[in-house]
């Protein structure tokens, strides 16, 4: 086998990898291009501050969906973040116990449950029990979807923190709980935080579980026990409607959603760089 032949094979391999990468990235860019092109024209002041208007009337907006999505995700975070971080701490600290083994298994299974199934479960547990659709049931569904990502990122971050750090703290007579809260958690804050933000980005676009739970609402609502609108549900409802105006709003909402997810991802990257902890 001559050297030239090997060089040619090298170049060929490199070329194929590049071509395949481009083929994979292209659809993504096309989707982004289309959404931006259609969405950006829908966005103006009215879009942010007005409620949806009846068909035919000009100047409708999605203020209710923006507020709704914000509230639902905020509530979901309030449920999921403390719980997820606690479970993550447990898993990394007591990894050899039976409970940890089963918890980890459950987390892996939970991660694989389709979002629509979670929606149905919460419908049965919460919506049926309460007797009506509500924003809080939507938050519970989303928090269940956030949990695996938060637990995993917490566990994996904490696992990488050297034991010597814990020993240093304990050897100063610092009680165990303070060692965890003041030494171990701060040392892992970047990893935990990025897990949290990415999990928010992931559920921000979840539609299926919200259809059964928060349901949607054409009016402004901040009462968490009542049905509430959200970006994904407004996209779903307006996109399947027959009206041109509403399609436009759906494009605008899609663009907003993607912009929010993009911003969250950028924040994660910046946080990772800025608060990087060096051992």
């Amino acid at each position, binding site marked *: 086998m001559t050297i030239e032949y090997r060089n040619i094979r090298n170049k060929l391999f490199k070329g194929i990898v590049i071509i395949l990468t481009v083929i994979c990235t292209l659809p993504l860019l096309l989707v982004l291009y289309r959404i931006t092109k259609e969405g950006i024209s829908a966005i103006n002041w009215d879009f942010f501050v007005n409620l949806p208007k009846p068909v035919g009337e000009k100047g409708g907006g999605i203020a209710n969906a923006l507020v709704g999505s914000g509230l639902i995700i905020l509530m979901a975070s309030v449920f999921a973040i403390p719980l997820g971080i606690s479970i993550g701490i447990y898993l990394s600290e007591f990894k*050899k116990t039976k409970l940890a083994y089963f918890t980890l298994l459950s987390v892996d299974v939970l991660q694989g449950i389709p979002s629509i199934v979670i929606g149905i479960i919460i419908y049965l547990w919460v919506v049926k029990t309460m007797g009506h659709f509500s924003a809080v049931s939507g938050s519970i569904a989303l928090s269940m979807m956030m949990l695996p990502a938060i637990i995993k990122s917490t566990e994996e971050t904490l696992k990488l923190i*050297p034991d*010597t*750090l814990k*020993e*240093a*703290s*304990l*050897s*100063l*007579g*610092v*009680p165990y709980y*303070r*060692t965890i809260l*003041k*030494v171990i958690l*701060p*040392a892992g*804050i970047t990893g935990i935080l990025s897990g949290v933000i990415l999990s928010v980005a992931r559920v921000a676009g979840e539609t299926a579980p919200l259809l059964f739970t928060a349901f949607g609402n054409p009016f402004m609502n901040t009462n968490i026990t009542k049905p509430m609108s959200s970006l994904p549900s407004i996209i779903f409802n307006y996109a399947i409607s027959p009206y041109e105006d509403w399609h436009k709003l759906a494009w605008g909402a899609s663009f907003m959603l993607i912009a929010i997810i993009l911003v969250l991802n950028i924040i994660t990257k910046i946080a990772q760089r800025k608060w990087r*902890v*060096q*051992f």
Partner: protein
Amino acid sequence: MAGTILKAKNFNAFFGQNQVLKNINLDIMRNDVVAVMGPSGCGKTTFIRCINRMHELTPDATAEGEILVDDKNVYKMNLIVLRRKIGMVFQRPNPFPTMSIYQNAIAGYLLNGIKLTKSKKDEVVETSLKRVALWDEVKDSLHKKGTFLSGGQQQRLCIARAISLNPEILLLDEPTSALDPISTSKIEELIYELKKNYTIIIVTHNMQQAGRISDKTAFFYLGEVLEYNVTKEIFTNPKHEKTQNYITGHFG
């Protein structure tokens, strides 16, 4: 304040079924520097980790017998009180990565939630850092991260962190094995200075180091104390053949 500060009585330690310390009996005098020496795996580190009960952090690790500090059994003392009384410095420098040099020096207070006034804090930081001869090197960068320092400086910072709580005993677990010769000699000078105020138990692989800095040496072999005597005596006139072989470099 002469007298015995630490006494081990028929002390045994285990990892699961594996006995790593066998019937240790040892008296340590106040303000002595005691070197703990011996080949790898002989239980040196386990022994000092038993003194402040870090040993029991390892799953399956157990211990029997008594270690008395100031005539009190460490296994009956409150862990928090015990560990404040006995400072520890580890093999690899491990300053808290999220804290500044200043915060690291008073980490014992910060993490334990002991409130200090600003001036008291400054005072503790300054005296601790001066005692470890680090003050002049870092006084202009106190608010930089502790991990920003060089390895030798980090280790001195860790010693400052340990002595800021005014312990009675300082346990050093091969504190210079990860450091360069110059940092090592600085730490050795420091140990010589610290001996005035503290009792120091230092695990070391380095025989010259044991010879230079310690008053007494305990030679551990397969979990037992083969010989414990004044350092000079051990080096010039070892009683035990194994000690002699180790010191002359025949094994270990």
